[in-house]
């Protein structure tokens, strides 16, 4: 992979989760960007592990998908050494769905943003908070009293 083309904006590795995100990414990307489409956000880590060693410092990473999926891509990138300024997300319009990080057992599951959730692992009833962790790629689920 050659070094970044310094004549324009930084080149981007765009990781889209799902077909709809892939189509959205294709519309917004430039020719020198690398677009990879995965079926599930769980595949983001595998794709990043394969792609990042081919890149040079200076590239940016973009996560495209639902709010939850884009956040998961961002968390996977940060876990692999990306700095916050190097990662952006393009959430699609269904931002009412979020990934919820259980404050009791740390399991993650999806929920509606405005709903009360039950942790699928430990069963604790959780209130979906507004506290979003970029590292975990999820919002905090607070046990209901």
């Amino acid at each position, binding site marked *: 992979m050659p*070094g*970044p083309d*310094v004549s324009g*904006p*930084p*080149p981007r590795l765009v990781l889209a989760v799902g077909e709809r995100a892939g189509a959205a990414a294709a519309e917004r990307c430039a020719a020198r960007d690398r677009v990879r489409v995965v079926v599930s956000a769980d595949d983001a880590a595998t794709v990043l592990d394969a792609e*990042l*060693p*081919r*890149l*040079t*410092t*200076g*590239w*940016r990473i973009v996560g495209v998908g639902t709010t939850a999926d884009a956040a998961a891509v961002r968390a996977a990138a940060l876990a*692999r*050494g*990306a*700095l916050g*300024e*190097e990662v952006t997300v393009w959430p699609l319009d269904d931002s009412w769905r979020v990934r919820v990080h259980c404050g009791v057992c740390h399991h993650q599951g999806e929920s509606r943003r405005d709903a009360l959730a039950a942790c699928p692992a430990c069963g604790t009833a959780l209130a979906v908070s507004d506290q979003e962790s970029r590292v975990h790629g999820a919002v905090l689920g607070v046990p209901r009293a």
Partner: protein
Amino acid sequence: MLELRVADVATPCAGVRSVTLVGDGPLPSYPPGAHVGLEWAPGRLNPYSLTPTPSPRGPTPRDLPPGLDPEEYHLSIALRPDGEGGSRRVHALAPGDRVRATPPRSSFPPVGTAAHHVLVAGGIGVTPVLAHAAWHAFWGNSFEVLLVQRPGVTPHAADLRALAGDRLARATDRTAVPALLDEALRGAPWNSHVYTCGPPGLIAAVAATARRAHWVADRVHAEPFVHAPATGTPFTAVLRRSGREVAVGAGESLLDALDRAGVAAPRLCRQGVCGECVTEVAAGRVEHRDTVLGDDERDGHMALCVSRAAVGETVELQL
């Protein structure tokens, strides 16, 4: 303060004195890039980088990580005849002399999560870079070194060569530096960090090259050995966007005060040479100490890292 004794002195090259210091007991460990503040007159301290312990097998022993439980501290200090006196004091030291120093302070550490480290040294700036190189060599980390030197006058060049081997590139001609920097930074693998110790011009050149290659500021680290003083009379900065007031103490820079207040502000070189922290000034006269703004740019702008409000003034910033 540590009470230390000079165990040995050497002159590795013209104008540079290497000093070996020992304590009366165990010495504190230190990370690569750390320095001690050596007292050269009562209450006057100069920071000097710690270099790894030399050994017959190379510059560092292989049994312990460099800097861990050291038996000695090693410093190499360039003589500055026109300085305030710190380097002259060191160059006059002889075995048996006693000196006082602060415990090691880490101000220039390697980033533990980096996949690759680009080390750039200019002149006596080789000292912390040597410590970084010894650390990476010990742990088997990926690194490369660019040494900018005048022929025959850089200490530790042989040590650096022993550590880095073919990962060391040397430039004895300043005109060769831009191309070497460009090659190193444009081709650096994902998740690299660059660390520069040298004169302000070299630090600025590295920062500019990194910026052109789209590196973000947090991947660019620098330790100047010619500091622009950032301290002075206390003043207040008013942040226009939030309406907050930040008090800047006598012993800190405006950038330090903003950090303390939790205000995000851009920065890169921290010595008034790269321009990354230049911010619009809405009101107030400024005492400019940077070397990046032209006269026509100074009206309405200031470098947060070194410049201050003029005495008796309050500056209002577009932050």
